[in-house]
Protein backbone atom coordinates (compact mmCIF):
# COMPACT_ATOMS: atom_id res chain seq x y z
CA UNK A 1 0.00 0.00 0.00
CA UNK A 2 1.97 2.92 -1.28
CA UNK A 3 1.85 6.04 -3.37
CA UNK A 4 2.03 3.81 -6.43
CA UNK A 5 -1.09 1.89 -5.42
CA UNK A 6 -2.88 5.15 -4.60
CA UNK A 7 -1.98 6.68 -7.96
CA UNK A 8 -3.07 3.58 -9.82
CA UNK A 9 -6.40 3.52 -7.99
CA UNK A 10 -7.05 7.14 -8.92
CA UNK A 11 -5.98 6.59 -12.52
CA UNK A 12 -8.35 3.66 -12.91
CA UNK A 13 -11.22 5.69 -11.48
CA UNK A 14 -11.54 3.30 -8.56
CA UNK A 15 -12.27 4.22 -4.96
CA UNK A 16 -9.87 4.92 -2.12
CA UNK A 17 -11.14 3.14 1.00
CA UNK A 18 -10.47 3.99 4.68
CA UNK A 19 -7.73 1.41 5.19
CA UNK A 20 -5.86 2.22 1.99
CA UNK A 21 -2.66 4.18 2.11
CA UNK A 22 -3.21 7.78 1.06
CA UNK A 23 -1.04 10.91 1.01
CA UNK A 24 -1.41 13.03 4.14
CA UNK A 25 -2.49 15.99 2.04
CA UNK A 26 -5.28 13.88 0.47
CA UNK A 27 -6.47 12.83 3.91
CA UNK A 28 -6.38 16.41 5.21
CA UNK A 29 -8.20 17.73 2.16
CA UNK A 30 -10.90 15.06 2.40
CA UNK A 31 -11.46 15.70 6.10
CA UNK A 32 -11.75 19.42 5.40
CA UNK A 33 -14.15 18.89 2.49
CA UNK A 34 -16.38 16.36 4.28
CA UNK A 35 -16.40 18.29 7.57
CA UNK A 36 -17.30 21.50 5.78
CA UNK A 37 -20.13 19.68 4.08
CA UNK A 38 -21.33 18.15 7.36
CA UNK A 39 -21.21 21.55 9.09
CA UNK A 40 -23.21 23.03 6.21
CA UNK A 41 -25.95 20.45 6.68
CA UNK A 42 -26.18 21.16 10.40
CA UNK A 43 -25.98 24.95 10.18
CA UNK A 44 -28.31 24.75 7.18
CA UNK A 45 -31.05 23.42 9.46
CA UNK A 46 -31.35 26.85 11.07
CA UNK A 47 -32.61 29.21 8.35
CA UNK A 48 -35.48 26.92 7.41
CA UNK A 49 -35.93 25.41 10.86
CA UNK A 50 -37.03 28.84 12.08
CA UNK A 51 -40.22 28.44 10.01
CA UNK A 52 -41.33 24.99 11.17
CA UNK A 53 -43.43 26.26 14.07
CA UNK A 54 -44.93 28.99 11.85
CA UNK A 55 -45.59 26.98 8.68
CA UNK A 56 -49.03 28.09 7.44
CA UNK A 57 -50.54 24.65 6.76
CA UNK A 58 -50.09 21.34 8.51
CA UNK A 59 -49.03 19.75 5.23
CA UNK A 60 -46.27 22.33 4.70
CA UNK A 61 -45.25 21.95 8.32
CA UNK A 62 -44.83 18.19 7.93
CA UNK A 63 -42.84 18.58 4.69
CA UNK A 64 -40.54 21.18 6.24
CA UNK A 65 -40.01 19.25 9.45
CA UNK A 66 -39.13 16.13 7.49
CA UNK A 67 -36.71 18.10 5.34
CA UNK A 68 -34.88 19.64 8.29
CA UNK A 69 -34.74 16.20 9.87
CA UNK A 70 -33.15 14.88 6.67
CA UNK A 71 -30.47 17.55 6.99
CA UNK A 72 -29.62 16.37 10.51
CA UNK A 73 -29.37 12.86 9.07
CA UNK A 74 -27.06 14.06 6.27
CA UNK A 75 -24.88 15.75 8.87
CA UNK A 76 -24.71 12.52 10.84
CA UNK A 77 -23.55 10.34 8.01
CA UNK A 78 -21.12 12.91 6.73
CA UNK A 79 -19.51 13.17 10.16
CA UNK A 80 -19.33 9.36 10.09
CA UNK A 81 -17.58 9.51 6.71
CA UNK A 82 -15.08 12.00 8.18
CA UNK A 83 -14.52 9.63 11.10
CA UNK A 84 -13.33 6.93 8.68
CA UNK A 85 -10.37 9.25 8.06
CA UNK A 86 -9.49 9.52 11.75
CA UNK A 87 -11.37 12.73 12.60
CA UNK A 88 -13.98 12.69 15.36
CA UNK A 89 -17.29 14.47 15.57
CA UNK A 90 -16.60 16.28 18.83
CA UNK A 91 -13.34 17.68 17.49
CA UNK A 92 -14.97 18.77 14.24
CA UNK A 93 -17.85 20.40 16.10
CA UNK A 94 -15.39 22.34 18.19
CA UNK A 95 -13.61 23.51 15.06
CA UNK A 96 -16.94 24.68 13.69
CA UNK A 97 -17.99 26.67 16.73
CA UNK A 98 -14.54 28.19 17.18
CA UNK A 99 -14.59 29.30 13.53
CA UNK A 100 -11.61 27.17 12.47
CA UNK A 101 -13.70 25.26 9.95
CA UNK A 102 -16.18 26.79 7.52
CA UNK A 103 -19.65 25.95 6.31
CA UNK A 104 -21.46 27.09 3.19
CA UNK A 105 -21.74 30.87 3.23
CA UNK A 106 -25.31 30.71 1.90
CA UNK A 107 -26.62 29.90 5.38
CA UNK A 108 -25.49 33.27 6.68
CA UNK A 109 -28.43 34.95 4.98
CA UNK A 110 -31.70 35.42 6.88
CA UNK A 111 -35.05 33.83 6.03
CA UNK A 112 -37.53 36.71 6.02
CA UNK A 113 -40.74 35.07 4.79
CA UNK A 114 -42.26 31.64 4.31
CA UNK A 115 -41.54 31.94 0.58
CA UNK A 116 -37.86 31.62 1.52
CA UNK A 117 -38.56 28.00 2.41
CA UNK A 118 -39.61 27.37 -1.19
CA UNK A 119 -36.82 29.44 -2.73
CA UNK A 120 -34.17 27.74 -0.60
CA UNK A 121 -35.51 24.39 -1.79
CA UNK A 122 -35.50 25.48 -5.41
CA UNK A 123 -32.34 27.59 -5.71
CA UNK A 124 -30.13 26.66 -2.76
CA UNK A 125 -30.83 22.93 -2.88
CA UNK A 126 -30.69 23.15 -6.67
CA UNK A 127 -27.23 24.71 -6.54
CA UNK A 128 -26.16 22.21 -3.90
CA UNK A 129 -27.25 19.34 -6.15
CA UNK A 130 -25.23 20.73 -9.07
CA UNK A 131 -22.23 20.79 -6.76
CA UNK A 132 -22.90 17.42 -5.21
CA UNK A 133 -23.96 15.11 -8.02
CA UNK A 134 -20.37 14.95 -9.34
CA UNK A 135 -19.25 14.11 -5.79
CA UNK A 136 -21.12 10.80 -6.06
CA UNK A 137 -18.04 9.89 -8.13
CA UNK A 138 -15.54 11.23 -5.60
CA UNK A 139 -12.43 9.08 -5.37
CA UNK A 140 -12.99 8.64 -1.62
CA UNK A 141 -15.41 5.71 -1.27
CA UNK A 142 -17.30 6.51 1.96
CA UNK A 143 -17.93 10.08 0.82
CA UNK A 144 -19.05 9.02 -2.66
CA UNK A 145 -21.51 6.53 -1.20
CA UNK A 146 -22.89 9.04 1.32
CA UNK A 147 -23.37 11.53 -1.51
CA UNK A 148 -25.57 9.17 -3.50
CA UNK A 149 -28.13 9.02 -0.73
CA UNK A 150 -27.82 12.72 0.03
CA UNK A 151 -28.33 13.69 -3.60
CA UNK A 152 -31.48 11.60 -3.83
CA UNK A 153 -32.95 13.33 -0.80
CA UNK A 154 -31.80 16.77 -1.95
CA UNK A 155 -33.57 16.22 -5.27
CA UNK A 156 -36.72 15.43 -3.37
CA UNK A 157 -36.32 18.63 -1.35
CA UNK A 158 -35.79 20.68 -4.47
CA UNK A 159 -38.97 19.36 -6.02
CA UNK A 160 -40.88 20.13 -2.84
CA UNK A 161 -39.50 23.66 -2.75
CA UNK A 162 -40.50 24.23 -6.36
CA UNK A 163 -43.96 22.79 -5.72
CA UNK A 164 -44.43 25.23 -2.82
CA UNK A 165 -43.48 28.13 -5.08
CA UNK A 166 -45.92 26.95 -7.76
CA UNK A 167 -48.68 26.97 -5.14
CA UNK A 168 -47.73 30.47 -3.98
CA UNK A 169 -47.61 31.79 -7.55
CA UNK A 170 -51.15 30.47 -8.07
CA UNK A 171 -52.23 32.22 -4.86
CA UNK A 172 -52.81 35.84 -3.85
CA UNK A 173 -50.91 38.93 -5.00
CA UNK A 174 -49.25 39.07 -1.60
CA UNK A 175 -48.01 35.50 -2.02
CA UNK A 176 -46.64 36.21 -5.50
CA UNK A 177 -44.85 39.32 -4.23
CA UNK A 178 -43.41 37.26 -1.41
CA UNK A 179 -41.94 34.82 -3.92
CA UNK A 180 -40.43 37.53 -6.14
CA UNK A 181 -38.92 39.30 -3.14
CA UNK A 182 -37.41 36.05 -1.99
CA UNK A 183 -35.96 35.25 -5.43
CA UNK A 184 -34.45 38.74 -5.53
CA UNK A 185 -32.68 38.11 -2.25
CA UNK A 186 -31.47 34.52 -2.89
CA UNK A 187 -30.46 34.54 -6.56
CA UNK A 188 -27.00 36.08 -6.26
CA UNK A 189 -26.04 34.27 -3.05
CA UNK A 190 -27.05 31.01 -4.78
CA UNK A 191 -24.61 31.74 -7.63
CA UNK A 192 -21.90 32.38 -5.04
CA UNK A 193 -22.41 28.85 -3.69
CA UNK A 194 -20.18 27.53 -6.48
CA UNK A 195 -17.23 29.36 -4.99
CA UNK A 196 -14.81 31.89 -6.46
CA UNK A 197 -14.17 32.02 -10.22
CA UNK A 198 -11.81 29.34 -11.54
CA UNK A 199 -8.98 31.84 -11.89
CA UNK A 200 -9.05 32.50 -8.13
CA UNK A 201 -9.88 29.02 -6.87
CA UNK A 202 -6.95 27.79 -4.79
CA UNK A 203 -7.90 24.16 -4.37
CA UNK A 204 -9.34 23.27 -7.75
CA UNK A 205 -6.29 21.92 -9.60
CA UNK A 206 -5.13 19.47 -6.93
CA UNK A 207 -8.71 18.40 -6.19
CA UNK A 208 -9.36 17.69 -9.87
CA UNK A 209 -6.15 15.63 -10.09
CA UNK A 210 -7.20 13.60 -7.07
CA UNK A 211 -10.68 13.19 -8.55
CA UNK A 212 -12.36 14.54 -5.44
CA UNK A 213 -13.68 17.33 -7.61
CA UNK A 214 -14.90 16.66 -11.13
CA UNK A 215 -15.88 20.03 -12.60
CA UNK A 216 -14.65 23.55 -12.03
CA UNK A 217 -16.64 26.15 -10.12
CA UNK A 218 -17.47 28.11 -13.27
CA UNK A 219 -18.63 25.01 -15.16
CA UNK A 220 -21.01 24.08 -12.38
CA UNK A 221 -22.26 27.66 -12.01
CA UNK A 222 -23.03 27.84 -15.73
CA UNK A 223 -24.88 24.55 -15.56
CA UNK A 224 -26.98 25.85 -12.68
CA UNK A 225 -27.88 29.06 -14.52
CA UNK A 226 -28.85 27.16 -17.65
CA UNK A 227 -30.97 24.76 -15.65
CA UNK A 228 -32.70 27.47 -13.62
CA UNK A 229 -33.67 30.01 -16.29
CA UNK A 230 -36.46 27.88 -17.83
CA UNK A 231 -37.67 26.91 -14.36
CA UNK A 232 -37.98 30.60 -13.44
CA UNK A 233 -39.96 31.23 -16.64
CA UNK A 234 -42.31 28.35 -15.89
CA UNK A 235 -42.80 29.73 -12.42
CA UNK A 236 -43.40 33.29 -13.61
CA UNK A 237 -40.66 35.00 -11.59
CA UNK A 238 -37.92 37.33 -12.79
CA UNK A 239 -34.32 36.50 -11.96
CA UNK A 240 -32.79 39.81 -10.78
CA UNK A 241 -30.06 40.16 -13.41
CA UNK A 242 -30.52 42.59 -16.34
CA UNK A 243 -27.56 40.98 -18.14
CA UNK A 244 -29.05 37.49 -18.10
CA UNK A 245 -29.72 36.34 -21.68
CA UNK A 246 -29.30 33.36 -23.98
CA UNK A 247 -26.07 33.36 -25.97
CA UNK A 248 -26.62 31.22 -29.05
CA UNK A 249 -22.91 31.20 -29.94
CA UNK A 250 -21.91 29.71 -26.62
CA UNK A 251 -25.02 27.62 -26.24
CA UNK A 252 -25.31 28.96 -22.72
CA UNK A 253 -26.84 31.87 -20.85
CA UNK A 254 -24.67 34.90 -20.23
CA UNK A 255 -25.11 36.47 -16.82
CA UNK A 256 -23.97 39.53 -14.91
CA UNK A 257 -20.87 40.01 -12.80
CA UNK A 258 -21.09 38.51 -9.33
CA UNK A 259 -20.20 40.77 -6.40
CA UNK A 260 -17.21 38.80 -5.20
CA UNK A 261 -16.49 41.28 -2.44
CA UNK A 262 -19.79 40.26 -0.86
CA UNK A 263 -18.81 36.58 -0.95
CA UNK A 264 -15.44 37.41 0.63
CA UNK A 265 -17.17 39.43 3.32
CA UNK A 266 -19.63 36.65 4.17
CA UNK A 267 -16.95 33.94 4.12
CA UNK A 268 -14.72 35.97 6.39
CA UNK A 269 -17.49 36.12 8.97
CA UNK A 270 -19.17 39.42 8.18
CA UNK A 271 -22.44 38.17 6.66
CA UNK A 272 -25.87 39.08 8.05
CA UNK A 273 -26.22 35.98 10.26
CA UNK A 274 -22.74 34.48 10.78
CA UNK A 275 -22.61 35.27 14.50
CA UNK A 276 -26.18 34.12 15.11
CA UNK A 277 -25.73 30.78 13.30
CA UNK A 278 -22.60 29.88 15.24
CA UNK A 279 -24.12 31.11 18.46
CA UNK A 280 -27.15 28.82 18.10
CA UNK A 281 -24.89 25.86 17.37
CA UNK A 282 -22.54 26.67 20.24
CA UNK A 283 -25.40 27.11 22.69
CA UNK A 284 -26.97 23.79 21.71
CA UNK A 285 -23.60 22.07 22.06
CA UNK A 286 -22.82 23.64 25.44
CA UNK A 287 -26.35 23.31 26.84
CA UNK A 288 -26.31 19.65 25.83
CA UNK A 289 -23.02 18.83 27.54
CA UNK A 290 -24.64 17.69 30.80
CA UNK A 291 -26.99 15.42 28.83
CA UNK A 292 -24.14 13.77 26.93
CA UNK A 293 -22.19 13.41 30.17
CA UNK A 294 -25.19 11.78 31.85
CA UNK A 295 -25.59 9.31 28.98
CA UNK A 296 -21.90 8.42 29.16
CA UNK A 297 -22.02 8.02 32.96
CA UNK A 298 -25.06 5.77 32.74
CA UNK A 299 -23.49 3.67 30.00
CA UNK A 300 -20.37 3.25 32.11
CA UNK A 301 -22.45 2.02 35.05
CA UNK A 302 -24.34 -0.48 32.94
CA UNK A 303 -22.41 -3.17 31.21
CA UNK A 304 -25.53 -3.61 29.12
CA UNK A 305 -28.22 -0.95 29.12
CA UNK A 306 -31.76 -2.33 28.88
CA UNK A 307 -32.75 -2.84 25.28
CA UNK A 308 -35.91 -1.41 23.77
CA UNK A 309 -37.24 -4.93 23.65
CA UNK A 310 -36.70 -5.46 27.36
CA UNK A 311 -38.53 -2.26 28.23
CA UNK A 312 -41.39 -3.21 25.95
CA UNK A 313 -41.58 -6.67 27.48
CA UNK A 314 -41.71 -5.24 30.97
CA UNK A 315 -44.49 -2.90 29.95
CA UNK A 316 -46.41 -5.85 28.55
CA UNK A 317 -46.41 -7.47 31.97
CA UNK A 318 -48.61 -4.72 33.32
CA UNK A 319 -51.75 -6.01 35.11
Amino acid at each position, binding site marked *: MTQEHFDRTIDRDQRIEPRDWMPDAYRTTMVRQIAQHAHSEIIGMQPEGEWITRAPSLRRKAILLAK*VQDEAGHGLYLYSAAETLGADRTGLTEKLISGRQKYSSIFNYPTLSFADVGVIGWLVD*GAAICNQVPLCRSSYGPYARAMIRICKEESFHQR*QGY*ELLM*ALMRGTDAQREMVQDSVNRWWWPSLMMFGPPDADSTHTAQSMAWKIKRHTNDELRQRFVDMTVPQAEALGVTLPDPDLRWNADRGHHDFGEIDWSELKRVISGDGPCNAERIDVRRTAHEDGAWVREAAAAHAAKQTAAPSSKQIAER*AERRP
Partner: protein
Amino acid sequence: MAFDNALGAIAEDNDETRWAFGTGFHDPLAGIDTSVPDGIDRHALSAYCLMLGDDALIMSHRLQEWCTHAPELEEEVALANIALDLLGQARLLLSRAGTAEDAGRAEDDLAYFRNAPEFRNIVLAELPNGDFAHSTVRLLMFATWRLALLDRLTTSRDPVLAAIAAKSVKEVAYHRDHAALWTIRLGDGTDLSHARTQRALDALWPHTGELFTAHKIERDLAAMGVAVDPSDVREEFDTVLDEVLTKATLRRPAPAPPANSAGRDGKHSTPLSDLLAELQSVARAHPGATW
Protein backbone atom coordinates in the same frame (compact mmCIF):
# COMPACT_ATOMS: atom_id res chain seq x y z
CA MET B 1 -23.31 12.72 -19.64
CA ALA B 2 -22.96 10.31 -16.75
CA PHE B 3 -22.59 13.42 -14.54
CA ASP B 4 -26.14 13.73 -13.99
CA ASN B 5 -28.45 10.93 -13.19
CA ALA B 6 -29.90 12.67 -10.16
CA LEU B 7 -29.64 16.06 -11.82
CA GLY B 8 -31.39 14.81 -14.93
CA ALA B 9 -34.10 13.21 -12.87
CA ILE B 10 -34.99 16.47 -11.16
CA ALA B 11 -34.67 18.67 -14.23
CA GLU B 12 -37.21 16.69 -16.23
CA ASP B 13 -40.91 16.79 -15.62
CA ASN B 14 -41.47 14.03 -13.15
CA ASP B 15 -44.84 12.57 -12.46
CA GLU B 16 -45.93 14.51 -9.38
CA THR B 17 -47.06 11.42 -7.52
CA ARG B 18 -43.48 10.21 -7.50
CA TRP B 19 -42.44 12.79 -4.97
CA ALA B 20 -45.53 14.28 -3.33
CA PHE B 21 -45.95 11.43 -0.89
CA GLY B 22 -44.92 10.63 2.64
CA THR B 23 -45.41 13.76 4.68
CA GLY B 24 -46.79 15.67 1.71
CA PHE B 25 -50.28 14.23 1.33
CA HIS B 26 -53.06 16.79 0.88
CA ASP B 27 -56.09 15.07 2.35
CA PRO B 28 -55.29 12.96 5.41
CA LEU B 29 -58.45 10.86 5.04
CA ALA B 30 -58.44 10.57 1.22
CA GLY B 31 -60.26 7.47 0.06
CA ILE B 32 -61.61 6.64 3.51
CA ASP B 33 -65.33 6.18 4.22
CA THR B 34 -65.90 8.94 6.78
CA SER B 35 -69.59 8.37 7.42
CA VAL B 36 -70.42 8.15 11.13
CA PRO B 37 -71.93 4.78 12.17
CA ASP B 38 -75.55 4.80 13.31
CA GLY B 39 -76.09 5.39 16.98
CA ILE B 40 -72.95 7.49 17.49
CA ASP B 41 -73.47 11.15 18.37
CA ARG B 42 -71.47 12.84 15.62
CA HIS B 43 -71.03 16.08 17.56
CA ALA B 44 -69.59 14.22 20.52
CA LEU B 45 -67.34 12.19 18.22
CA SER B 46 -66.08 15.38 16.59
CA ALA B 47 -65.39 16.98 19.97
CA TYR B 48 -63.56 13.86 21.14
CA CYS B 49 -61.34 13.70 18.05
CA LEU B 50 -60.56 17.36 18.57
CA MET B 51 -59.32 16.57 22.09
CA LEU B 52 -56.99 13.81 20.91
CA GLY B 53 -55.95 15.80 17.84
CA ASP B 54 -55.15 18.93 19.85
CA ASP B 55 -53.06 16.88 22.29
CA ALA B 56 -50.97 15.66 19.35
CA LEU B 57 -50.76 19.03 17.60
CA ILE B 58 -49.62 20.96 20.66
CA MET B 59 -47.20 18.27 21.88
CA SER B 60 -45.74 18.14 18.37
CA HIS B 61 -45.24 21.91 18.41
CA ARG B 62 -43.27 21.75 21.65
CA LEU B 63 -41.04 19.06 20.16
CA GLN B 64 -40.58 21.14 16.99
CA GLU B 65 -39.20 23.89 19.20
CA TRP B 66 -36.22 21.63 20.00
CA CYS B 67 -35.16 21.70 16.37
CA THR B 68 -31.50 22.89 16.09
CA HIS B 69 -31.27 23.03 19.91
CA ALA B 70 -31.04 19.32 20.79
CA PRO B 71 -28.13 18.05 22.91
CA GLU B 72 -26.80 15.81 20.12
CA LEU B 73 -27.49 15.13 16.46
CA GLU B 74 -29.06 11.72 17.07
CA GLU B 75 -31.55 13.52 19.28
CA GLU B 76 -32.29 16.10 16.57
CA VAL B 77 -33.35 13.21 14.36
CA ALA B 78 -35.30 11.40 17.08
CA LEU B 79 -37.21 14.44 18.37
CA ALA B 80 -38.10 15.53 14.83
CA ASN B 81 -39.28 11.99 14.18
CA ILE B 82 -41.57 12.00 17.21
CA ALA B 83 -42.84 15.47 16.33
CA LEU B 84 -43.61 14.26 12.81
CA ASP B 85 -45.49 11.21 14.07
CA LEU B 86 -47.62 13.37 16.35
CA LEU B 87 -48.21 15.92 13.61
CA GLY B 88 -49.43 13.09 11.38
CA GLN B 89 -51.77 11.91 14.13
CA ALA B 90 -53.04 15.46 14.60
CA ARG B 91 -53.79 15.75 10.90
CA LEU B 92 -55.79 12.52 10.89
CA LEU B 93 -57.69 13.33 14.08
CA LEU B 94 -58.49 16.94 13.18
CA SER B 95 -59.68 15.73 9.79
CA ARG B 96 -61.89 13.17 11.51
CA ALA B 97 -63.21 15.91 13.79
CA GLY B 98 -64.03 17.97 10.69
CA THR B 99 -65.79 15.16 8.82
CA ALA B 100 -67.95 14.38 11.87
CA GLU B 101 -69.14 17.97 12.49
CA ASP B 102 -71.80 19.92 10.62
CA ALA B 103 -69.52 22.77 9.60
CA GLY B 104 -67.14 20.29 7.95
CA ARG B 105 -63.99 22.27 8.71
CA ALA B 106 -60.69 21.06 7.27
CA GLU B 107 -57.58 20.29 9.32
CA ASP B 108 -56.08 23.72 8.68
CA ASP B 109 -59.29 25.57 9.60
CA LEU B 110 -59.17 23.81 12.94
CA ALA B 111 -55.44 24.24 13.54
CA TYR B 112 -55.08 27.86 12.44
CA PHE B 113 -58.41 29.56 13.02
CA ARG B 114 -59.44 28.63 16.53
CA ASN B 115 -58.38 30.61 19.60
CA ALA B 116 -56.95 29.20 22.81
CA PRO B 117 -60.29 28.71 24.64
CA GLU B 118 -61.46 26.53 21.73
CA PHE B 119 -58.49 24.19 22.04
CA ARG B 120 -59.17 20.97 23.94
CA ASN B 121 -55.65 19.65 24.63
CA ILE B 122 -54.52 18.74 28.12
CA VAL B 123 -52.40 21.41 29.84
CA LEU B 124 -49.43 19.01 30.18
CA ALA B 125 -48.89 19.20 26.40
CA GLU B 126 -48.75 22.99 26.27
CA LEU B 127 -46.28 23.62 29.11
CA PRO B 128 -43.05 25.26 27.92
CA ASN B 129 -40.17 22.87 27.20
CA GLY B 130 -37.82 23.80 30.02
CA ASP B 131 -34.52 21.92 29.88
CA PHE B 132 -33.95 18.53 28.27
CA ALA B 133 -34.88 16.70 31.49
CA HIS B 134 -38.16 18.57 31.70
CA SER B 135 -39.01 17.82 28.06
CA THR B 136 -38.04 14.17 28.49
CA VAL B 137 -40.13 13.56 31.61
CA ARG B 138 -43.08 15.37 30.06
CA LEU B 139 -42.79 13.20 26.94
CA LEU B 140 -42.61 10.07 29.07
CA MET B 141 -45.81 11.03 30.88
CA PHE B 142 -47.57 12.10 27.72
CA ALA B 143 -46.60 9.06 25.66
CA THR B 144 -47.36 6.55 28.45
CA TRP B 145 -50.81 8.05 28.91
CA ARG B 146 -51.50 8.38 25.20
CA LEU B 147 -50.34 4.86 24.39
CA ALA B 148 -52.71 3.46 27.02
CA LEU B 149 -55.60 5.41 25.46
CA LEU B 150 -54.74 4.51 21.86
CA ASP B 151 -54.31 0.85 22.73
CA ARG B 152 -57.92 0.74 23.87
CA LEU B 153 -59.16 2.90 21.00
CA THR B 154 -58.11 0.29 18.43
CA THR B 155 -61.48 -1.36 19.15
CA SER B 156 -63.51 1.86 19.00
CA ARG B 157 -66.93 1.56 17.40
CA ASP B 158 -65.93 4.37 15.05
CA PRO B 159 -63.91 2.52 12.40
CA VAL B 160 -62.02 5.68 11.39
CA LEU B 161 -60.92 6.39 14.94
CA ALA B 162 -60.02 2.71 15.42
CA ALA B 163 -57.84 2.78 12.29
CA ILE B 164 -56.11 6.00 13.35
CA ALA B 165 -55.44 4.45 16.77
CA ALA B 166 -54.03 1.27 15.24
CA LYS B 167 -51.55 3.29 13.19
CA SER B 168 -50.65 5.56 16.10
CA VAL B 169 -50.06 2.81 18.67
CA LYS B 170 -46.90 1.68 16.89
CA GLU B 171 -45.57 5.23 16.81
CA VAL B 172 -46.35 6.15 20.40
CA ALA B 173 -44.89 2.86 21.68
CA TYR B 174 -41.59 4.10 20.26
CA HIS B 175 -42.07 7.57 21.78
CA ARG B 176 -42.62 6.06 25.21
CA ASP B 177 -39.63 3.79 24.82
CA HIS B 178 -37.41 6.66 23.73
CA ALA B 179 -38.49 8.88 26.63
CA ALA B 180 -38.14 6.01 29.11
CA LEU B 181 -34.59 5.25 28.04
CA TRP B 182 -33.62 8.91 28.35
CA THR B 183 -35.32 9.25 31.74
CA ILE B 184 -33.28 6.29 32.97
CA ARG B 185 -30.03 7.69 31.51
CA LEU B 186 -30.63 11.09 33.05
CA GLY B 187 -31.88 9.84 36.41
CA ASP B 188 -29.06 7.35 36.78
CA GLY B 189 -26.37 9.40 35.03
CA THR B 190 -24.60 12.15 36.99
CA ASP B 191 -25.55 14.03 40.16
CA LEU B 192 -26.44 17.03 38.03
CA SER B 193 -28.64 15.09 35.61
CA HIS B 194 -30.31 13.26 38.49
CA ALA B 195 -31.14 16.54 40.26
CA ARG B 196 -32.50 18.13 37.09
CA THR B 197 -34.65 15.11 36.28
CA GLN B 198 -36.05 14.88 39.81
CA ARG B 199 -36.83 18.60 39.68
CA ALA B 200 -38.65 18.13 36.36
CA LEU B 201 -40.62 15.22 37.76
CA ASP B 202 -41.66 17.20 40.84
CA ALA B 203 -42.70 20.17 38.71
CA LEU B 204 -44.68 18.12 36.19
CA TRP B 205 -46.33 15.61 38.50
CA PRO B 206 -49.24 17.85 39.58
CA HIS B 207 -50.34 17.89 35.93
CA THR B 208 -50.98 14.15 35.98
CA GLY B 209 -54.20 14.85 37.88
CA GLU B 210 -55.72 16.16 34.69
CA LEU B 211 -54.79 13.08 32.67
CA PHE B 212 -57.27 10.83 34.47
CA THR B 213 -60.14 13.26 34.91
CA ALA B 214 -62.85 12.28 32.44
CA HIS B 215 -64.72 14.99 30.57
CA LYS B 216 -68.44 14.36 30.12
CA ILE B 217 -67.97 13.70 26.41
CA GLU B 218 -65.29 11.12 27.15
CA ARG B 219 -67.54 9.38 29.68
CA ASP B 220 -70.57 9.36 27.40
CA LEU B 221 -68.68 8.08 24.37
CA ALA B 222 -66.80 5.51 26.46
CA ALA B 223 -70.16 4.11 27.60
CA MET B 224 -71.02 3.60 23.91
CA GLY B 225 -67.73 1.88 23.09
CA VAL B 226 -66.46 4.79 21.00
CA ALA B 227 -64.00 6.45 23.38
CA VAL B 228 -61.86 5.55 26.39
CA ASP B 229 -62.61 6.80 29.87
CA PRO B 230 -59.19 8.18 30.89
CA SER B 231 -59.71 7.19 34.50
CA ASP B 232 -59.38 3.58 33.29
CA VAL B 233 -55.74 4.01 32.24
CA ARG B 234 -54.35 5.31 35.52
CA GLU B 235 -53.20 1.89 36.70
CA GLU B 236 -51.26 1.22 33.52
CA PHE B 237 -49.71 4.67 33.70
CA ASP B 238 -48.65 4.16 37.31
CA THR B 239 -47.18 0.73 36.59
CA VAL B 240 -45.06 1.97 33.69
CA LEU B 241 -43.93 5.11 35.51
CA ASP B 242 -43.01 3.12 38.61
CA GLU B 243 -40.89 0.78 36.57
CA VAL B 244 -39.06 3.55 34.75
CA LEU B 245 -38.59 5.77 37.80
CA THR B 246 -37.19 2.87 39.80
CA LYS B 247 -34.60 2.14 37.15
CA ALA B 248 -33.87 5.85 36.93
CA THR B 249 -33.39 6.01 40.72
CA LEU B 250 -35.96 8.80 40.87
CA ARG B 251 -38.44 9.39 43.67
CA ARG B 252 -42.07 9.37 42.62
CA PRO B 253 -43.98 12.36 44.05
CA ALA B 254 -47.21 11.88 46.02
CA PRO B 255 -50.25 11.18 43.82
CA ALA B 256 -51.68 14.35 42.30
CA PRO B 257 -55.29 15.15 43.21
CA PRO B 258 -57.76 14.98 40.31
CA ALA B 259 -58.03 18.27 38.45
CA ASN B 260 -61.39 19.96 38.51
CA SER B 261 -60.89 22.19 35.50
CA ALA B 262 -58.64 21.64 32.61
CA GLY B 263 -57.71 21.87 28.96
CA ARG B 264 -60.58 19.58 27.94
CA ASP B 265 -62.88 22.47 28.94
CA GLY B 266 -60.78 25.03 27.08
CA LYS B 267 -59.07 26.31 30.23
CA HIS B 268 -55.43 26.83 29.38
CA SER B 269 -52.28 28.49 30.61
CA THR B 270 -50.80 31.65 29.07
CA PRO B 271 -48.10 29.68 27.24
CA LEU B 272 -50.76 28.16 24.98
CA SER B 273 -51.77 31.61 23.74
CA ASP B 274 -48.14 32.40 22.99
CA LEU B 275 -47.71 29.05 21.24
CA LEU B 276 -50.80 29.64 19.08
CA ALA B 277 -49.74 33.20 18.23
CA GLU B 278 -46.63 31.69 16.68
CA LEU B 279 -48.25 28.64 15.10
CA GLN B 280 -51.01 30.71 13.49
CA SER B 281 -49.05 33.85 12.61
CA VAL B 282 -48.45 33.30 8.90
CA ALA B 283 -51.77 31.62 8.19
CA ARG B 284 -53.69 34.47 9.83
CA ALA B 285 -51.65 37.13 8.06
CA HIS B 286 -52.99 35.73 4.77
CA PRO B 287 -56.63 34.82 5.34
CA GLY B 288 -58.11 32.89 2.45
CA ALA B 289 -54.71 31.99 0.98
CA THR B 290 -53.83 28.41 0.12
CA TRP B 291 -50.37 27.01 0.63
